[in-house]
């Protein structure tokens, strides 16, 4: 279970990106995070694995206080939290298989990984994960030779390599066309339903939210303005989340 308590983030420049956010995510849930551009979705997700240092508040995951973890403990926590990004964030000039294997970096001994040595079982596992997302044949290509949809699959395979208990997905389908978006979302759904991995996923399209999410939280200018089931977002709630002038499409 993930508990976020009174989370606040003020950036160095003084931007108040998150204000006093509290919510709970039971293990195994698919939680969608919605909100306008700039509302703080990325900041929230990055605070959870402390890629961004929270200013105040607590994040407690399975009883462990992430916000108080030492660098060593943080390494152990992070390796169980996979992350998927809007722009995939692959290392372009590296091979696909290397990008996937990078998911193991939190587990293997740093001394050997510096020599680009991974245990055999990891290499086998990497091939399995690539097969699972349907691009096993691309293992030896350079990452930047892949299409956007294929790159995002590599991103998911990399997260899967971490043997994650939770996946943070920051707008994983925002740079993909609608068909690809569904295929990527289906992968996430399968990981969530089959493997019981908790998924926190920020999304821009409400139809995706309705289709895939168990529960939704909504941010507006860094504040939590809605928490509930996707079906509970009626026109009134929609205007709370996206502003009075917003028109509902689709």
């Amino acid at each position, binding site marked *: 279970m993930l508990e976020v308590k009174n989370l606040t983030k003020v950036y160095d420049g003084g931007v108040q990106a998150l204000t006093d956010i509290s919510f709970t995510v039971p293990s195994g849930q698919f939680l969608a995070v919605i909100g306008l551009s700039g509302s703080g979705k990325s900041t929230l997700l990055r605070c959870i*694995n402390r890629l961004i240092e929270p200013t105040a508040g607590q994040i407690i995951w399975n009883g462990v206080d992430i916000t108080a973890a030492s660098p060593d403990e943080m390494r152990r926590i992070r390796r169980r939290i996979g992350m998927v990004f809007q722009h995939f964030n692959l290392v372009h000039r590296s091979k696909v298989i290397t990008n996937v294997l990078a998911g193991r970096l939190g587990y293997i001994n740093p001394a050997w990984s*510096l020599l680009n*040595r991974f245990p055999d079982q990891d290499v086998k596992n990497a091939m399995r994960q690539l097969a699972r997302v349907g691009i096993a044949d691309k293992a030896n290509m350079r990452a930047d030779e892949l299409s956007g949809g294929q790159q995002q699959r590599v991103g998911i395979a990399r997260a899967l390599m971490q043997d994650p208990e939770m996946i943070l997905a920051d707008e994983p389908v925002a740079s993909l066309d609608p068909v690809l978006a569904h295929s990527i979302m289906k992968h996430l759904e399968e990981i969530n339903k089959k493997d019981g991995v908790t998924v926190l996923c920020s999304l821009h399209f409400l139809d995706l939210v309705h289709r895939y999410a168990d529960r939704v939280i909504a941010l507006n200018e860094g504040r939590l303005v809605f928490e509930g089931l996707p079906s509970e977002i009626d026109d009134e709630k929609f205007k709370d989340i996206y502003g009075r002038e917003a028109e509902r499409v689709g």
Partner: protein
Amino acid sequence: MKSTTTKNTSLWKSVRLGATILLVFVVYAYGFEITQVNLDELRSPQRQESLVRVTRALFQPDLFTYKQDESVVNTPIYVPCPEGGSVPAPTPEDRSAPYLVFSPGCANPGDTIQVEGFNFYPNAEGALRFIPGNDPTTKLALGSDTVATDAEGHFVATLKIPDRQSPQAQYVRATLRRNTGLPQLTDTARDTWEKIVETVFLALLATTLGTILAIPLSFIAARNLMKSVKSPLGSISLSILGWPVGIVGGYFVVDQVSAFSAPLAENIYLNLLGGALAPVAAMLAARWALPEMETQTPGVPLRIARLASLFLAALVGFFGLYQVASLMVNLGALIGDRLGSFEFLGNFMVQSGDIIRTITPVVGSLAVGGAVSSFFSRLGQRGTEKLTKSQVKLMNLVLATTAGAVVLALLGQAIEWLYELNRPDITRWGMSLVGAAAGALLALFTEAKTSLPIGLAVYTVTRTILNTLRSIEALVMAIVFVIAVGIGPFAGVMALGLHTIVSLAKLYSEQVESILPGPLEAIEATGANRLQTIVYAVIPQIIPPYISYTMYRWDINVRMSTIIGFVGGGGIGFLLQQNINLLNYRAASAQMLAIAIVVATMDYISSTLRERYV
């Protein structure tokens, strides 16, 4: 009201313009004065003459020469004409050999006679000289006339008889030369070739050395990597203390290993055995100490055992290094003698072995220093996490005070040594006191458990040092190294190498700063540590620009190494300067030509390679 202000401003403007023009005028006038711009000098006939001479010489590089055959004919002549006017006509005994005919057959001083030559080399050039005295074999010759023969080996020339009188016959000598065989390289060309090779390799070594050391520096000098490096004060202080402790300890240990390895150094078979077995043993020990993957945190005894094993691995590793060095020295000496003209290969092995032997203690103590420092820093980190706030405060106070004192005391020692102050009360105790006070203040005024931006501090210091060193010209560095290691290419390698380190580190670090942050973030999110993040997210992104900058730097180093000889740094510059000073412009021209060719070739190669790899 409004119009007056406009008027005022326009007046003010023209005054300002006038003042500016005046100022510019004065500045340039002064510039002309101190740079001694003076076209009269250029117009003086003497200057122009030497300019012509030099220019002509520069266009005739001293590269090729022919073997020459000489045909010398000395023919007697009476100066003045003998009393009675009868001239013994010199009749050659053999009409098929070269001979000279004068008309008239004798002359008074100052007369001009006609000289005709027959049967010389066809189409050849040579000299026509008056030989004073009565010995035709003497080297002394007067005059500077040149003659050229036609296709039949015939020439007609005039010769002014100098004021040398003798009752006996004096001589006129015609010396005609002709080239034989194929053109050959001159000695200058050979020397130039030898030195240009030295130049290129000087640049190669300097670039290699510089690149190897600039890469790690460039990460420390990259803001985006260092910004997030933060550490609590106790950890920082301990890691600072770890360096001197580790370096001294490391030096001691490596020294012991060296002493242990020395008796075995002579025997080439023992070297072979040691050099082969030691790395394997070290590798095995290291593999045991560093398991590929670990799911549980190991217990304390196991961790101590692993540490001991790592230490042992390091010892064995250093031993192996020494043995390999001895092996290279011995083997190099052995095969060098038998390789004939490839002796340099043996010599290379001997020198490399010697280099390994020399730098092992340095590298070893630095490595141990780094290891101890990072170990201490972890201890500090642990302590900060485990202890209560007030305990941490106390720990910080003690450690920061000590670290501050040690750092400034070391700095004081450096100052003492540099300036020979002989004031230990200030340089040792005074400095330590200041350091201690600074450390204590830092400890008192920071929150006990907060992390301080040590990364930014290291970044700033590194950048400052790099920028300072970079502003020192390589030529100036070369002067310093010539004093330190003597005249020769080695000084040049050191100077260019150092300059390469600092300028490449700067260029590289700018590349690191401009990488995409996304992959960095993604790798960090997998739980990778800092080093892993660099290897997996940073290095793949910077390889192309690094290659490109290295090529570019090699190009610069080749240019630099051509002139570094001017200050004694080896390479072709030394030869060039010498020939210019000796007014030997045709030789200097050969060297300039060589430089131009090498630089142009390098330019071409480096741009081609850069295009291919980037």
